[in-house]
């Protein structure tokens, strides 16, 4: 079992943070890589990009939004309990190097957790790193302090204007792309539409953009091809070749469709889970 050492509810309980004991993974994980976790015997294998790692303590941090049965089950796990299975680090690490211009890391929703270690990595490499993070409203914003520390400059946006800039992350991104300072690289993680619009915008400005994709996976080792995504017209596997790809090449519409493959069944599973919770079957 992979024990949960710390647990925090964020964004009014819609987002959960777990610090998990996984020394082997923590020792070798690099920014941009992910793990696959499974709660129990009957559970599903869920890929999650690590939000942080601490090789000294032997821990990794995951932050996930509660969206369905599996994440609801994860949410029910308390400190001292844990995940039956945890596999990683998987995927290619972010290529971190020193750029002569700005590196802008854009995080939307729980995508902020994904860009956190990447932001930190670029800053440690000596880059000037701008973090742009956004959420629907102030209450749903996560990791503001952590992202402030990880970056050299931070901008916060909310869709409803309840905090920071009133509007989307792309609005703020645009001011940098049009600004005087050179932008060398944009890294984006978050909902697919956000990554799509970020990529569209940066393409106009000719700025290289990496997006971190959250495809559906089973094994995470390139064996099943379930995570396939079209990049520049070619089929690539997110698990072994990704999770980061050139945002200007990714077919986001296909990705959106593939992510909806099990919508109906996910709903069914969630309803059963809620029902079982109410009648106490999950105790």
């Amino acid at each position, binding site marked *: 079992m992979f024990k949960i050492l710390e647990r925090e509810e964020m964004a009014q309980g819609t987002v959960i943070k777990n610090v998990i004991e996984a020394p*082997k*993974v923590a020792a*070798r994980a690099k920014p941009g890589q992910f793990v696959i976790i*499974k709660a129990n015997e*009957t*559970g*599903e*294998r869920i890929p999650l990009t690590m939000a942080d790692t601490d090789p000294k303590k032997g821990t990794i941090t995951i932050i996930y939004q509660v969206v369905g*049965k*599996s994440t609801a*089950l994860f949410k029910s796990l308390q400190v001292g309990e844990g995940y*039956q*299975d*945890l*596999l*990683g*680090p*998987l995927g290619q690490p972010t290529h971190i190097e020193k750029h002569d211009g700005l590196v802008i890391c854009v995080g939307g929703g729980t995508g902020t957790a994904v860009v956190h270690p990447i932001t930190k990595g670029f800053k440690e490499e000596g880059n000037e790193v701008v973090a742009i993070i956004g959420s629907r409203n102030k209450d749903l914003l996560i990791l503001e302090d952590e992202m402030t520390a990880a970056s050299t400059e931070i901008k916060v946006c909310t869709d409803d204007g309840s905090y920071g800039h009133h509007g989307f992350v792309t609005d703020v991104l645009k001011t940098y792309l049009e600004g005087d300072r050179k932008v060398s690289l944009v890294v984006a993680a978050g909902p697919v539409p956000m990554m799509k619009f970020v990529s569209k915008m940066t393409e106009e400005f000719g700025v290289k953009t990496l997006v971190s994709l959250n495809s559906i996976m*089973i*094994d*995470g*080792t*390139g*064996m*099943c*091809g*379930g995570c*396939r*995504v*079209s990049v520049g017209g070619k*089929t690539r596997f997110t698990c*072994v070749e990704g999770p980061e790809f050139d945002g200007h090449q990714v077919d986001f519409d*296909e990705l959106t*469709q*593939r992510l*909806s*493959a*099990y919508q109906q*069944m*996910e709903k*069914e*599973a969630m309803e*059963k889970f809620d029902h079982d919770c109410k009648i106490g079957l999950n105790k």
Partner: protein
Amino acid sequence: MAEKKEKTPRQAMPEQDPQVRRNNFDEVPLGYSPETAQLEASRCLQCKKPSCVSGCPVEIDIPGFIGLIKEGDYSGSIAKLKEMTALPAVCGRVCPQEVQCETLCVLGKKGEPVAIGRLERFAADMAREKGDQTLPAAAPKTGKKVAVVGSGPAGVTVAGDLILKGHDVTIFEAFHKAGGVLVYGIPEFRLPKAIVQDEMDGLAKLGVVFELNQVVGRTVSVDELLEEYDAVFISVGAGLPSFLGIPGENLIGIYSANEYLTRSNLMKAYLFPEYDTPIVRGKNVCVLGAGNVAMDSARTALRLGADRVRIVYRRSREEMPARAEEIHHGEEEGVEFYLLTNPVTFIGDENGRVKSMECLKMELGEPDDSGRRRPIPIEGSNFELETDLVVIAVGAGANPLITSTTPGLEVNKWGYILAEEETGKTRKPRVWAGGDIVTGQATVILAMGAGRIAANSMHQYLTWGW
């Protein structure tokens, strides 16, 4: 005397009725009763120089274990089997005996060969049902340590052989369950997972350590293993699904056979929502390819509630690579064969779900490199085939995860590891390899044979240093 023995016909094994079994995941053949097993065992001529043994990649003492069944000494029989195979219950079920041991049986020359596979299965099942924990005797500890990468048939054979020779063995498995293709690939109705688990438990009792959730090449590298272990055996399987590379292949409802079978078998999606992993349940299913994996996929689709399942294959029936028994079982259950047909495009609906495929009719030309007649498209024969679930079962390639992260490990032009046929030695010192990552996709027993060869060579190295 020989004449009298031949009068007993080869004993049939009872099976679930096709119309019943196409709706459940229970095992199809039901196994021999002790009476039937003894009768079948009595057919064996106990040849002094048994040719059947030379047809077995792991050289099981076939007359030996069959003779013990005839005498009713089931526990002796399983002990005899376990001297040579770590997986008797598995081999008795999934080996293609008809092209190996049984095809060489003397009785087969005039009549039907002894049902060696069914008897092997019987001996293993009897032992398991009776809780017979007989373990083969192990040699004294040598103090040497071996790492095995991958817990499929090749890996567990090496583990079983070397632990009995006194070496410490640790198996590294990427999945959360041990067994490799036996748990993710072969369906429950052909090989119940409880049986695989039982064989894995047997190895654990012998002292084999299983490290699950370890991706060698990511979690730990081969070079790091070499720091801690005296020798490493790589048996990670082929592990890279082949797609057709035609338009529309990423539509929802198009799976690689690897994904389809892994969801159903390893993740138990057939028990959704009791298990959390979902699977697309097609009503009108097309399986592309005609090997054993295609048959497994087609029969799984039936059990997941399909009204119609078609095997779509670009060659003719004669060239179908699946075992005759698998084709027969599938046909009995209602799988249809759509031959000399090749898809060229997948067509989706407005939600990105597959709704049909455009196909071309084919005809057979001259034999190609594989010796089979080459399928040639008939121009203008395009037609549309409706389908709501497609499983692509046209083979697998070499997964580069381990080969690309291990310096010194040489591969051929397809990415398979170069290993000596007689020893399993790779070009990298202290590293052996075997199974599908060396040969390309093959059978369980061939992988076990490769494991046996490598284990012998590894034992020599660990004992004498060469």
